[in-house]
């Protein structure tokens, strides 16, 4: 059991890549929906997917390039931004996707009536 958990955690980058591919597909689908049907739900979903992608990329990459030099260069405001921005992006990204999906769902329901 323990070795199984170990494999999942050590292969975290693979799972993260799956999540990123899913978000990219979501973004492409949302852009396509927005362009083809002019539905605002698609635009909201695309914005949400981009927010989530940016936040996840930052959270994946920041341990590799963040060191004391960069932290002292960006100063206290920058450090608080690096803490606050990913959380805000993750929250607003999720809200955008849910809101956009709701808009698209209403559009589909109205179209089927």
């Amino acid at each position: 059991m323990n070795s199984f958990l170990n494999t999942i955690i050590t292969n975290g980058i693979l799972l993260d890549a799956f999540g990123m591919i899913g978000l990219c597909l979501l973004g492409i689908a949302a852009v396509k929906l927005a362009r083809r049907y002019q539905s605002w739900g698609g635009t909201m979903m695309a914005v949400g997917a981009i927010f989530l992608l940016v936040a996840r990329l930052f959270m994946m990459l920041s341990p590799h390039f963040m060191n004391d030099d960069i932290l002292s260069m960006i100063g206290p405001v920058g450090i608080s931004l690096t803490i606050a921005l990913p959380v805000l992006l993750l929250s607003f990204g999720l809200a955008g996707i849910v809101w956009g999906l709701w808009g698209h769902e209403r559009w589909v329901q109205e179209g089927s009536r």
Partner: protein
Amino acid sequence: MNFVIHSPLASIEAVRPVFMVVMGTFLMVIAWRLCKSADGWAARLIVAGALLLGIGYAVLVPLYETGAIARFSPKAQTISNSAMFWQAMKQVVMNSGWLLFGLGLAIHAKVFSPTTPALELSKSPQNELVS
């Protein structure tokens, strides 16, 4: 429950888990409403992905945010089995949830199918010249 941190009411730390629970539940409900009249792989993938994401956002992330689950950190000297289990569960649930949801929505939006039907392309000017 030694890990529970009591944050003041209506602070951002206290609101975020509630926000996540609401969003996760909404995502599941909307995906189900979108797909209840449809069948096929797109609907199945969207519902499966939304269910996984709903579990992730409505259960796992709030538990982490409130501190009910110990956070996993690879630099720690001793890693408890439960922290490892929850971390593995979170990784699998969230990432496969986004993958399935994205794939389902991409099929729903017809990203993979060509925009022009193949039949229209078969008619070429050379055929017209011959006839």
